[in-house]
């Protein structure tokens, strides 16, 4: 019986191909699928991890707690504000940089390397450097002072603390997206521009009627990745605030909150519920974007 099944070519091929995929399936299973399933399970439990591990089914309690938790709303608000400001600016900036580098300016290879540097630097190092720049007597304030502009307590004032992180994030991620735009720009056939030139189109018209529409799929990718990346903001605000999300919760983000509950209060159940909520929010945001970009 087994022999007969084995003889069928389809079965043999299927077995062989699954065996080839086995390493990936095993790795994905252990590091991706099982943790996801486990996190969903955790979010419906009261978990005690320190000492003797214990689970107690608590139904939707963790999710009800989210609705009443003031800090969750602050974190969501901060994160939403962050997304709303950072994503558009970094996308437009990336496009402008890409357009500049795509034109025939001198030494553009050098510019590419210089622009790309912040992206290859570790974000922890960048954050530490920026903390020096943002220091009360740091580079930025000295510069503003020199121009007779008002100076700020960039790290200590709740009103500007989040903005300083935004500024840094835009500066460090825009070049990465610039490279993607640059690759897409070079894919646009020159013949299209030539045809438009013959038809008498101006530079702006070429940009709005050829470049932008052809870049649309890439723009969707960049905006989606930008939104996901900014929703998951953690390291910068963690280092800036020393893990507290202060001053006065102004740099608290959802992921930082998850970290605090999971590793400071060891409340894994609630932390898992928060993580699930964040996943839901990101999924929703991506779906909304898809409908925006998908008219035709």
């Amino acid at each position: 019986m087994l022999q007969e099944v084995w003889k069928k070519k389809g079965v043999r091929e299927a077995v062989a191909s699954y065996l080839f995929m086995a390493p990936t399936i095993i790795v994905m299973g252990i590091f991706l699928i099982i943790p996801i399933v486990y996190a969903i399970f955790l979010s419906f439990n009261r978990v005690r991890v320190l000492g003797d591990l214990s689970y107690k089914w608590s139904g939707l309690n963790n999710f009800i707690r989210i609705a009443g938790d003031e800090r969750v709303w602050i974190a969501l608000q901060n994160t939403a504000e962050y997304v709303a400001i950072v994503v558009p600016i970094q996308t437009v900036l990336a496009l402008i940089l890409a357009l500049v580098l795509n034109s025939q300016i001198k030494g553009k290879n050098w510019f590419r390397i210089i622009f790309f540097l912040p992206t290859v630097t570790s974000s922890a190092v960048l954050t530490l450097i920026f903390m020096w720049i943002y220091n009360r007597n740091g580079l930025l304030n000295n510069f503003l002072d020199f121009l007779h502009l008002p100076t700020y307590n960039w790290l200590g004032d709740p009103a500007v603390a989040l903005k300083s992180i935004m500024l840094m994030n835009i500066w460090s991620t825009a070049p990465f997206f610039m490279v993607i735009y640059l690759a897409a720009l070079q894919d646009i056939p020159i013949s299209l521009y030539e045809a438009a030139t013959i038809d008498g189109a101006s530079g702006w018209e070429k940009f709005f009627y050829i470049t932008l529409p052809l870049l649309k799929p890439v723009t969707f990718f960049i905006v989606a990745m930008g939104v996901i990346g900014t929703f998951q903001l953690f390291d910068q605000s963690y280092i800036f605030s020393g893990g507290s999300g202060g001053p006065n919760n102004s740099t608290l983000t959802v992921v930082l909150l998850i970290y605090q509950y999971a590793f400071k209060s060891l409340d894994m159940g609630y932390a898992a519920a928060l993580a699930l909520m964040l996943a839901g929010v990101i999924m929703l945001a991506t779906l909304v974007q898809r409908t925006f970009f998908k008219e035709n």
Partner: protein
Amino acid sequence: MKTILYFCVVLLLVAGTIIGCSSRNPDGVTTVTIAGWQSNTNENQLLEQVFKKFEAENPKIKVKHEVINDQYMDVIKTRLIGDAAPDVFYLDAFEAPLLMKYDVLSPLSPDIKANFSLADFEAPLLNAFKYKDQIYGLPKDFSTLALFYNKKAFQEVGLNQPPKTWEELRKYSKKLTIDKNHDGKIEQYGFGITPDLSRQYFMIKAYGGKLVDKNGNCAFDTPEALKGLQLVIEQYRIDKTSAQPSDVGASSGSEMFGQGKAAMVIEGSWAIPFLKDTFPNIDFATAEVPTVNGKKGTMAYTVAYVMNKQTKHKDAAWKLISYLTGKQGMKTWAKEGLALPSRKSVLSELGYNKNRLYAPFVAGAAYGTIWQAGKNLPIIVTQFNNQFISALIGEQPLQSAMKKAEATANREIEAAS
């Protein structure tokens, strides 16, 4: 098909060797892992010396020293959960109630013999590591807070004595707050403050306020507790004679003091070696924290060696702890002066109580508030710090800030219990 089979066998073999490697043990020698943080390299060298001596006296035990410098408690807790924690580790009194309650520490009382002279330890320090009549940790050292003042800055404005009371402190601060080059920006503030509950707890107690009630719930939203804190806020907002480190671009109170941006700060004894190393030119002296409401008050911090309940080398671990907290071991290590030895005999033998810089810290041990308040303290600290800063920078009055902090903390405590 055969090739795939071979491949699987090889894979299994490789996996087997990797797992097998970790469980090998050289004959008769046990390795005890000890983890802690490190304040400076000198401290580390002294500690290594103590370990060398210990290994010489106990040839069957090897000590493996791990330094965890950032987010120490997060790392330790996570490793405790993953059964990968060191055998012996430092534990701050602040986090002790939680770990003792969750039964992850090994009680040390059964091993303590009479000749270990437990009575030699400062009683409040030892009590911080007691739970249900068992001792879970032996204090390695302690520190209190005292007033640091810049002698030169004092002379320049004609002061020759440190302030004795909080009223004096505020009066002196006004004299010491100076705009040296008249550009409208203050170069030297009178007083540097650290708006953190771990430093302000004694201000809550000054007028009879409490941090937690007997159930471990947050209880600092009372007129008595606010009265002490209000003094700090008033000086910052109305007198404008105090500053936070971040206001002047420093990362800590001692750095701010060392840079001459504050003429007085309240700091721990760890600041003495730091100032001497980093700012050798500054001429400073110390005094006891000025009295508030006519009463002396300060904070006391202590750290103990504790034993992981999961340890496989209980005897060796105990030998190490008893050596480190014994008279001899403590004496070698406490010379650095970052913190004061927790044994009274060592404290007086090393002459800390007669040293002019250290005497105010030793005196503080008698009336200091131990930085500990039940297992919910970490939650309370987060809420307090967030709201206290908000009140300090004038976003809301202190009363409403503290009301909010207390309500949020208690809600979290209830949800977590």
